[in-house]
């Protein structure tokens, strides 16, 4: 058994024969004896042919994978028409190169320019200009494009793989891909993700692995050849869960979350940053119910700037394409601390300077975040959620700051959205004034972890208190019911976004209380949706709490 690790491009599990992919080398046909003019004419003819190939490929990809994937090959076509690229080829041809080698040399020259760029995304564009140059050179020297697959499905191992090569392979014979070089930002990687093809890069495989049995663990970022029975069984189990999830998505995609007796509830997902959005989209959640913005702060060495925050919020808002993204403002303090905040040590951090209290004390930090959220609102449906609220005064102060930011941005001529405003209900105080809060804001969001901690006076950080920790305590459930009723009275949406939202034994109770939305980890969205669609609330009494 031999194994190698790699960077994950796309999760998933594949088991099958490993095949090492070899690209046909472009032959050195330097002395073909044609004049530069003749070589240039050959190049132009090959370009026309490559253009036609790319048009066809574009059409096929558009049909199979959608517009965004097709755009990759449209860019390839445009690269072939780029004046600077054509100039580089022309110069090389004039200096005596054959058309094929001139195309490769021009491709390398621009690839080097991309590879030298600062930005990882732009560096990965080197692969595109190489790909298109190889396509032209291949036409000129009569090479079969890329490789083809026949016979049994395989896991493909390649030095690197261009987007064209990947699209040329028969998907039904391809179980997964590993490459030695390449980037998770390459267009081939983006295509692999769109195809849901298990894939790794940066894998140091050996040519001797060709033809051997292998398992590719796209979730764990490992490949193993000649796996033993134990590993095979474990991977088979992983694969089963993965495929089941895919089936579940197929079954539920686009379907409403309605119980058998016709009660509906929204199911959204909780995220910690733009990196989680793919998972949300894959789960077909109705929105992001909780974006824990503090992770942008906890992962940073210093305060994230307005631009950094704006970029992160915008990315999520855009990716969610009109579905609501609820951004919880900075919930730092207590157990979540970052050194650069220079917070003083406290006796009782859970009851201390945290969340909204910190934001209303250090207003510049808060305003930077509010400005970034307002600006992101121009690119999608975002909402602001205030954590740890205990009074109406806090809500009004925060709203004033939000208005201040809006006025500033208007003055600056910046594009903005009009985000909804909501508050976290996670203290008994907020529950007791839920009516007043519901009259003031657009939505209430129950944070059941803190609500349990503050209601039961049980420190959730203390492992010794585990047996006293009971989020299903009647006191907590009554708090939730009280809040849901207040929301209903005022036409104010009520969401549960804590761990309890995913507790299936309580789903029926939440539906009865009239909770409008449950927000859970992305992986819990699909199973919960299926659970809801199987519930029938007829003929059962109100739960006893």
């Amino acid at each position: 058994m031999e194994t190698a690790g790699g960077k994950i491009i796309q999760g998933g599990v594949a088991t099958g024969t490993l095949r090492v992919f070899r690209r046909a080398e472009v032959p050195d046909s330097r002395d073909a004896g044609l004049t530069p003019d003749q070589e240039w004419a050959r190049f132009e003819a090959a370009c026309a042919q490559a253009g036609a190939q790319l048009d066809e490929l574009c059409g096929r990809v558009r049909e199979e994978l959608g517009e965004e994937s097709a755009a990759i090959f449209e860019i390839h076509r445009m690269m072939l028409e780029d004046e600077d690229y054509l100039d580089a080829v022309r110069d090389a041809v004039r200096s005596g190169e054959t058309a094929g080698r001139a195309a490769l040399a021009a491709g390398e020259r621009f690839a080097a320019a991309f590879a030298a760029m600062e930005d990882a995304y732009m560096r990965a564009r080197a692969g595109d200009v190489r790909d298109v140059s190889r396509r032209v050179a291949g036409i000129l020297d009569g090479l079969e494009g890329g490789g083809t697959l026949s016979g049994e499905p395989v896991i493909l191992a390649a030095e690197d793989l261009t987007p064209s090569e990947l699209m040329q392979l028969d998907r039904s014979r391809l179980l997964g891909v590993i490459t030695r070089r390449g980037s998770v930002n390459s267009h081939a990687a983006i295509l692999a993700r769109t195809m849901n093809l298990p894939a790794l890069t940066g894998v140091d495989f050996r040519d001797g692995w060709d033809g051997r049995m292998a398992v590719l663990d796209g979730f764990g970022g490992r490949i193993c050849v000649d796996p033993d029975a134990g590993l095979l069984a474990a991977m088979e189990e992983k694969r089963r869960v993965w495929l089941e999830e895919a089936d579940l998505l197929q079954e539920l995609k686009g379907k409403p979350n309605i119980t058998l007796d016709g009660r509906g509830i929204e199911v959204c997902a909780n995220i910690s940053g733009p990196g989680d959005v793919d998972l949300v989209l894959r789960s077909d959640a109705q929105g992001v119910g909780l974006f824990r913005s503090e992770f942008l702060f906890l992962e940073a060495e210093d305060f994230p700037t307005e631009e950094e925050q704006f970029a992160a919020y915008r990315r999520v808002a855009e990716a969610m394409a009109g579905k609501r993204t609820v951004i919880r403002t900075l919930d730092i303090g207590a157990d979540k601390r970052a050194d650069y905040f220079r917070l003083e040590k406290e006796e009782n951090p859970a009851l201390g300077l945290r969340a909204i209290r910190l934001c209303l004390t250090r207003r510049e930090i808060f305003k930077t975040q509010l400005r970034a959220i307002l600006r992101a609102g121009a690119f999608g449906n975002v909402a602001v959620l205030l954590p740890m609220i205990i009074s109406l005064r806090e809500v009004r102060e925060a709203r004033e700051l939000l208005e201040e930011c809006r006025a500033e941005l208007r003055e600056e001529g910046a594009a903005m959205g009009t985000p909804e405003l909501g508050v976290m209900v996670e203290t008994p105080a907020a529950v007791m004034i839920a009516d007043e809060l519901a009259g003031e804001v657009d939505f209430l969001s129950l944070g059941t972890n803190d609500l349990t901690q503050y209601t039961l006076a049980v420190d959730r950080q203390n492992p010794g208190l585990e047996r006293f920790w009971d989020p299903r305590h009647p006191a907590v459930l009554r708090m939730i019911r009280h809040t849901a009723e207040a929301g209903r009275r005022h036409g104010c949406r009520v969401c549960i976004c804590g761990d309890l939202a995913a507790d299936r034994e309580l789903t029926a109770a939440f539906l009865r209380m009239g909770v409008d939305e449950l927000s859970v980890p992305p992986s819990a969205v699909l199973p919960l949706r299926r659970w809801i669609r199987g519930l029938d609330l007829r003929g059962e009494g109100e739960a006893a709490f």
Partner: protein
Amino acid sequence: MKQFTYTITDPIGLHARLAGLLVKAAKGLDSTVTVACTGGRSAEATRLMALMIMGVKSGETVTVTVEGGDEEASAAAMERFFRENL
């Protein structure tokens, strides 16, 4: 000659797909359009690779210059393009 400045808000900056759209839009105009950013980097808006290699990032401000042809209409079209896409 007409000129305007624009601050890029796309999170990845002037990336491949957007550069491609810009090239298409600029090719449809009868004016010469140049995009310049700080540090003396500049490229004609019809040149895809040059635009990409400029590496314009999110938050960077570019100066767009329109020369020749119907400058008024071309500048207006470019301003609209930047606002809607970048």
